[in-house]
């Protein structure tokens, strides 16, 4: 059983911080992921930087561009995950746009995921219509494809998406991009109930989540909360980001 599947068998609050690979410095990610795991992160999401991140708001866009300027590539990400795996067993999902993966090739990319210790994949521009061959291959290799649903995804489609995903899906909290403001709690809980009723897998929620209160609320209405922009915002390239990030994650977990 892969680490993600195992994690979502445990009925506990889950916090999933997001880091852009290679930001703020090329080698920051190893330290940040290990610090996050120490601080109580239940799983981490690592973003593969891309030149044209269409689903991302200004904060993650800028971090992605900085990471590319720092020289980050998919091959370096896999090398860094091998280093991370020597230190922590925290479940890791890679988040990335499809083109760099296509360029590397499905088979090579997935083999690299397996050999470096990646557990899941979040591909925001690979919807159900185009995802089947890639997802089937990923599942064959024991990697969880974490497909996305949105507030305007119809019930039946949520069901089909979760069937293809198999282990976990990711509910985008809003119609929008990362870092946007959240909708009203009423609309959100109605939507998340709909996901709960129709998904055959557990689901996490992301986009616009940034406080301890959010983390509690989303864990009551789903199986875990992803925090991205709020963490990236806490870093800057001119100082050591590890301690502030650690403190912030502890705050989100409610341990300080």
């Amino acid at each position: 059983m892969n680490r993600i599947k195992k994690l979502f068998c445990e009925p506990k609050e889950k916090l999933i911080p997001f880091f852009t690979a290679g930001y703020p410095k090329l080698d920051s990610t190893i330290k940040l992921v290990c610090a996050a795991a120490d601080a109580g992160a239940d799983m981490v999401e690592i973003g593969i930087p891309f030149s044209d991140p269409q689903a991302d708001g200004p904060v993650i866009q800028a971090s992605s561009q900085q990471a590319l300027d720092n020289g980050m590539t998919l091959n370096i990400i896999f090398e860094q995950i091998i280093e991370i795996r020597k230190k922590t067993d925290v479940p890791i999902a890679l988040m990335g746009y499809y083109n760099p993966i296509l360029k590397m090739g499905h088979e090579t990319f997935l083999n690299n995921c397996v050999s470096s210790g990646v557990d899941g994949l979040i591909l925001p521009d690979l919807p159900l219509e185009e995802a089947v061959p890639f997802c089937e291959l990923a599942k064959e290799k024991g990697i969880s494809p974490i497909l996305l649903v949105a507030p305007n995804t119809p019930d039946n489609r949520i069901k089909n998406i979760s069937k293809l995903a198999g282990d976990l899906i990711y509910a985008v909290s809003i119609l929008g991009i990362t870092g946007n403001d959240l909708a009203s709690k009423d609309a959100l809980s109605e939507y998340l109930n709909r996901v709960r009723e129709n998904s055959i897998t557990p689901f996490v929620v992301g986009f616009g989540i940034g406080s301890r209160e959010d983390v509690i609320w989303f864990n009551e209405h789903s199986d875990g909360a992803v925090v991205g922009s709020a963490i990236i915002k806490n870093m800057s390239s001119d100082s050591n980001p590890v301690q502030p990030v650690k403190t912030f994650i502890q705050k989100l977990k409610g341990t300080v």
Partner: protein
Amino acid sequence: MGNQFKNYNLPDERGHFEKFGGKFVPESLIPALEELEQYYTEAKQDESFQDKLNYLLKHYSGRETALYFASQISEELGFNIWLKREDLNHTGAHKINNALGQILLARRMGKKRIIAETGAGQHGVATATVAALFGLECIVYMGEEDIRRQKLNVFRMNLLGAEVRPVSSGSMTLKDATNEAIRDWVTNVESTYYLIGSTVGPHPYPMLVRDFQSVIGAEAKTQFTNQSGHNLPDRLVACIGGGSNAMGLFYPFINNDVKIVGVEAAGKGLESGEHAATLTKGSFGVLHGAASTLLQNDDGQVTLPHSISAGLDYPGIGPEHSYLNESGRVQYFSATDQEALDAFQWLSEKEGILPALESAHALAYLRQNNNGIESDENVIVCLSGRGDKDVHTVAEALGIKL
């Protein structure tokens, strides 16, 4: 030409031109694309929709546009050159054909807010124009670099009541304006119609933009027969950025025995690394919602194109062009900045027509030694737009201060 084009019927139901095309977009756009496809399918069969569109094309934009036999340059080159005068359209380019079609769709769908991306500003102007015509809110995303290069078009859009939003991410050109328009659409998908300007993006856009632009080829076909006494031309030529004027000219001829040539922007030269020759130098990839051909590095990061013409300065190309290239139905050539500049002046001096720098690439191909054109061939060239918008760029390139 292979038999597969006798019954050409692409894209398929999933929006694919074999391995190209499709819908590679965030999940929240899927319902919007399905809705758009449904409305478009209905509109296509609705006579009153077609009547409205034809009325506007004729009385608002001034169609049909002329097919002009360019005798001076024909004599010089030794074959017959027919210019399809899309430059004579209202707003000065073919972009209005598509903008009128899509604005009627947007109205049919009840959308009140229109967004668009623009490079050179021609599509932005066309969109601002049709939004003004129907009293709809209009926001145009434009890269800061392009805003600098095309101040005149920015002011035109403002006069038409549109808001031009500067985009400062990435290369600050068309690619980044498109990213920003997609982000806006993801966020405001329920109220907003995204009026894409070329045969790019997720299905059904490449298909519907092609269909709305096909008026170019349909008219040219009839006009050529009437004016030349021949049944069909020997060759079609059009410039390609995203590829909408080219698809518009080519599509009605796709199953005819006619040679078809697309001309990409070779910028400072194919070996310079500074060009926008996507099919010549790019590789298979996914950008802006479709699988097609891309300028990209070994890591799959999209690289920056270059062309003197802002309208061709794009690292991708419409998926149907990728398919027509791979299947061999269309041949793709390229022309450099310098060749386009020369052709710009050549047409101005010989025929009294200032072509858009985009269209000048298609004209430049006519003058290339290895173009394969035989003497006495009949060649239709799409003169996609007029060159008034480019006079500052041309003056700068010629070292003249205005």
